[in-house]
C-alpha cells in the first residue's frame, strides 16, 4: 500500500479524537534541530467542519484487538486497515512541519498484540523525532491504558502531552459498548502519569536541567450521546478526573454516526448542542468556580439545550441577585450570566478608576441584554426589576426554533476560541479546541 493510501486511512480513522490542542509546552528553537513550541498552539488550517488542524493527527495503525462498539476501528468492523512503520510517521511529521502545515504530531493507535507492544511503537516514533532529528515541535501521544510504567516513562520523556481516553463516563456504559475497557485500568494509567509529572516538576524546581515529563499535561475524551447517561454523569466523571489526576482538559465528543456502525448505537446526527453545553459547563467548573453538583439538579440531570448552564444556574438562584457591579467580589461576578472571565477582569480594573454604569458593560465586552437583569450599578437600571418575573427565561432566551442538530455557534459563556487564543497568554486557559472546534467521537485505547 502506498503512503498516500495509508495516510488517508489512518487520518480518517483518527479524526474522531476531539483533541487538537498544541498548547502548554515551551521549547526554544535550535539551529541544529527543527521547530519550537511557544506555549500557545497555532491552528494552521480549518476543515469544512470548522475544526482546527494543528497537528498531524493519525493512527499508527487501525488494526485493533478490541471491540468497542462506538469505534470505527473495532475488531468486528470491516473498515480498511493499514499500518505505518515508525520511519514513515517520522518523515511525514518532519516534511509537513518544514512547510509550516502543522505544529507537530498527535499519534494514536489501535491496540495491536498488547497494550505494551502498541505503546512501544508509538514511543519509538517520539524518540526518533526527538533524538535522531532534533525535532522540537509538539508531540502528543495516546497513552494505551494498561501499558507498563516503563513504556509510559519512555513515551513521557519525549511527548509534550499524553492522553488516555476514558470514552464513556461510567463502568456500566463501558460494559455495554466497550466490554474490554475498565475504568480502573484507564485511571491507573492516568494516576501513574500524574504522579510521574509531579515528580518531574519537583525535580525541575531543584534543577532546570532535569528532564521534563509530559510538560503539557494529560487529557482525556468522553463520547456524548452513545449511551443513556445524563450530563450529570459526564460532569461528575470530569470533576473526578480533574481533581484526582490533575487532567488539563476533558474533551467531549458528540457521538458521530460512523460508517458501518454497531446496531446497539443510536442512528442520528451527532448531538452537537449537547456537546457544546457540556463544554460550557466544563468551562464553568474550571474557570468560574462552579462545582459539578451545582450545574444540574437531581430532577433535571441534563443541562438545558436552549440556554447556557450559567443562565440556568442563575435562574434557579435568583435570590442571590442583583449584584452591584461596583462592589461585588470577583467570584460573585463570575456567576453573572453574560459576564466572561475577560469582562469580569475588565470590570475589576475599570471600577478602580471610576464607578461603573450599566451602559459601560457593552464597552467592557459583556452581553448587556443578558447581564442587565442580574446587576445594579451607578444610575438607573430598569431591567433589574425583571429579575423576579416568571417569564425572565423567555425574555432572555431568544424565541427561535432551536435546530438541535445544527452546529452551535459559540456565544455567551465561552469566548470565541480564535480570538481568545490570541489574547490570553495562559496555555490551556484558552478554549483552543473548544466546542465547535471540537470534533466527533471516540477512538480506541
Amino acid at each position: 500500500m502506498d503512503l498516500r493510501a495509508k495516510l488517508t486511512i489512518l487520518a480518517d480513522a483518527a479524526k474522531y479524537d476531539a483533541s487538537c490542542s498544541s498548547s502548554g509546552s515551551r521549547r526554544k528553537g535550535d539551529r541544529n534541530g527543527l521547530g519550537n513550541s511557544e506555549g500557545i498552539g497555532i491552528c494552521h488550517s480549518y476543515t469544512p467542519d470548522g475544526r482546527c488542524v494543528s497537528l498531524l493527527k493519525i493512527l499508527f495503525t487501525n488494526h485493533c484487538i478490541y471491540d468497542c462498539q462506538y469505534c470505527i476501528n473495532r475488531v468486528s468492523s470491516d473498515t480498511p486497515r493499514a499500518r505505518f512503520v515508525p520511519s514513515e510517521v517520522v518523515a511525514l511529521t518532519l516534511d509537513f512541519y518544514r512547510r509550516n502545515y502543522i505544529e507537530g504530531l498527535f499519534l494514536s493507535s489501535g491496540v495491536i498484540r498488547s497494550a505494551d507492544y502498541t505503546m512501544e511503537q508509538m514511543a519509538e516514533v517520539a524518540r526518533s523525532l526527538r533524538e535522531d532529528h532534533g525535532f522540537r515541535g509538539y508531540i502528543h501521544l495516546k497513552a494505551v491504558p494498561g501499558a507498563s510504567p516503563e513504556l509510559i516513562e519512555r513515551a513521557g520523556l519525549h511527548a509534550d502531552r499524553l492522553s488516555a481516553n476514558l470514552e464513556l463516563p461510567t463502568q456500566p456504559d463501558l460494559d455495554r459498548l466497550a466490554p474490554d475497557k475498565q475504568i480502573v485500568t484507564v485511571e491507573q494509567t492516568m494516576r501513574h502519569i500524574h504522579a510521574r509529572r509531579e515528580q518531574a516538576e519537583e525535580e525541575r524546581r531543584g534543577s532546570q536541567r532535569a528532564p521534563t515529563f509530559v510538560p503539557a499535561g494529560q487529557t482525556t475524551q468522553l463520547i456524548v450521546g452513545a449511551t443513556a447517561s445524563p450530563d450529570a454523569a459526564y460532569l461528575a466523571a470530569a470533576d473526578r478526573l480533574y481533581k484526582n489526576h490533575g487532567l488539563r482538559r476533558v474533551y467531549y465528543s458528540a457521538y458521530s454516526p460512523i460508517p458501518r456502525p454497531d446496531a446497539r448505537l443510536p442512528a442520528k446526527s451527532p448531538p452537537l448542542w449537547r456537546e457544546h453545553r457540556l463544554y460550557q459547563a466544563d468551562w464553568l467548573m474550571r474557570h468560574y468556580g462552579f462545582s459539578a453538583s451545582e450545574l444540574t439538579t437531581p430532577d433535571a440531570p441534563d443541562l438545558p439545550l436552549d440556554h447556557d448552564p450559567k443562565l440556568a444556574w442563575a435562574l434557579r438562584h435568583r435570590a442571590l441577585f442583583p449584584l452591584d457591579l461596583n462592589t461585588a467580589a470577583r467570584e460573585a461576578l463570575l456567576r453573572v450570566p453574560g459576564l466572561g472571565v475577560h469582562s469580569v477582569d475588565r470590570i475589576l480594573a475599570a471600577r478602580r478608576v471610576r464607578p461603573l454604569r450599566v451602559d459601560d458593560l457593552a464597552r467592557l465586552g459583556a452581553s448587556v441584554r443578558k447581564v442587565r437583569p442580574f446587576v445594579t450599578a451607578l444610575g438607573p437600571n430598569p431591567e433589574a426589576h425583571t429579575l423576579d418575573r416568571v417569564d425572565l427565561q423567555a425574555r432572555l432566551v431568544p424565541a427561535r426554533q432551536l435546530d438541535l442538530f445544527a452546529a452551535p455557534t459559540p456565544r455567551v459563556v465561552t469566548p470565541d476560541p480564535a480570538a481568545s487564543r490570541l489574547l490570553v497568554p495562559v496555555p490551556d486557559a484558552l478554549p483552543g479546541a473548544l466546542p465547535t472546534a471540537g470534533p466527533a467521537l471516540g477512538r480506541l485505547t
Partner: protein
Amino acid sequence: MTQVVTVDGLPSFRAAARDLAARGVRPEDLIFRDAAAAQAFLPGLDGSAPAAPHAAGTSRAPDAPRAPDAPRAPDAPRVPRRFLDMAEHVACHRDPARWAHLYRVLYRLLHGEPRLLDDPADPDIRRLAQLDQQVRKDMHRMQAFVRFTRVETPDGERYLAWHRPDHRIAARVAPFFADRFGSMRWSILTPDEGVHWDGDTLRFGPGAPRAEHDVPADAELLDLWRAYYAAMFDPARVNLRKMRADMPLRYHATLPELRNVHDLVRDSSQRTQIMIAKHAAPAPTASDALPAQRTLPALRKAAASCRGCDLYRCATQVVFGEGPEDAQVMLVGEQPGDHEDLEGRPFVGPAGKLLDDALAAVGLDRGTLYVTNAVKHFKFERRGTRRLHARPTQPEIRACSTWLRAEVDVLHPRMILCLGASAAQSFQGPSFRLTASRGEVFDDTPWAPWWMATYHPSALLRMPDKDARAAATEAFHADLRKLAQDLGRR
C-alpha cells in the same frame, strides 16, 4: 496652532511624541502624516530613512526587530510598559490615524490620567486596544497561514512562501520563523517586504505583489497534505461559517489544502445520509436477557433465553455455573464440552475428572467451590457423528461475559482462578497472554481480591508432547497448591 508631524516608524514617532508631550502640545493641535503613505516605502532599501523599523540591510536574529532606543533624556516622561508594548503593535497597523490615537493616549497618560490604561471602557483605550488586537491577530495568522514550498537550487534546498498580511507585520513575525525554522534556508515574501533567513541572519528586502505561480511545486508533499486534509474532515459536522470565521476567504488562495474544498463540502450531506441509512435494527445483546432480580437461580433461569450470540442455536442447553452461594473461590473454565452440553452441568467430562483429582490432591473439595465457564453454550464442529470442540471467538466470549460478570457480582468471590486463556481474556480483555501471565497472582482486581489464570485441564489432556505435558501438569498442580495455600491464609 496646528502642527504637522511626519512619522515613518515607531522610533521616529517615539522621538517626536516624547518631545511634543513634554512641551505640552495638545493632541488636537497636531496632524500626524504617515511617511509611508506619501512615498513608496521599502524598508531596508531606503537608507535615507533615519529610523526605519529595521534600518537598512541586516539585523541579527532572532532577537530582532526592535531598533535600539534613541538616547533618552534624564527627565524624559515615563509611560507604562504596557503602553509601549501596545505601541509596538499599533505602529504596524495600516490605519493612517494610528499615530494620532497613540499620541492622544500618551498625552492623557502624561497629563493627569496616569491610570488611564486601567479603564478599558474609555473610548480612546478601547480604540487603541482594538488596533493592538487586530495587529496581533494578523501576526498570529501569518504564523499560521504561511505555507512553504521546497525548491531545489544550485546551492541546496530552499523554502519559499508568499503571504499577504493585513498590516505591516512581516518584520515583527520574522523572528518567530527564524526560531522555528532555524536550520532551514527560507524566504517569505509579502506585498510590502521580503524576509530572508540563511541559517544565521535575517535579511529584509523588497516584497512581491503576488505569489509566483511558476515556482516548481513540491508536488508529492502537496498531494499528501491534501489527502490528509480531506481525510480529517467529518462530513456529519459541516460548519462553513465557523471555518470562514477562523480562516477568512482572502487567505484561501495561498492555502494549498483548500483547492478541492468545494467538492468535499458538496458530497458531505450525501455521505452522512448514507451513513445513517446503513443503520440496521438493533441486534439483541446478552444484557437484554439479564433479570431484574440478581440471584444465582434467577440468572440461571434467564440465561436460557439469551440471544447475545448465535451459539444458542446449535447447543443443547445453557450450562450455567454451579456451587454454593457463599463460595469463596470461583473457578472459570472456557466453555462446556460434549458431556457437559448433554448433562447441563459444568466440568463433568474427562477434563472435569482431571480437575476433581487435582483439586483433591491439594485438599480442596469441589463441592465448596463455584464452578462456571466463560462461555455458557457448547461450540462445536461436526465430524460425522462426533461433535468436536471449537474455540469461541472474541465476540462470543465478550457477549457471554455479561453473565460471568453477573455471577461475580452475586457471589463476590474472594478468589478467582481462570482455567485457560479464554476464561482469563473474558476478564482481562483479548490482550491477555496465558503464556506470559500464568500463575501470576493479580491483587485487588475489580472482580476479586485474588485473581489468577492457569492451564485448562483439557489443554493438558490434549498436549501431544509428553515432556511438555508433564511440565504443564506440574505447573497446573503448583498453581492449584498456591490457590489452596492462599485460601488457607486468608
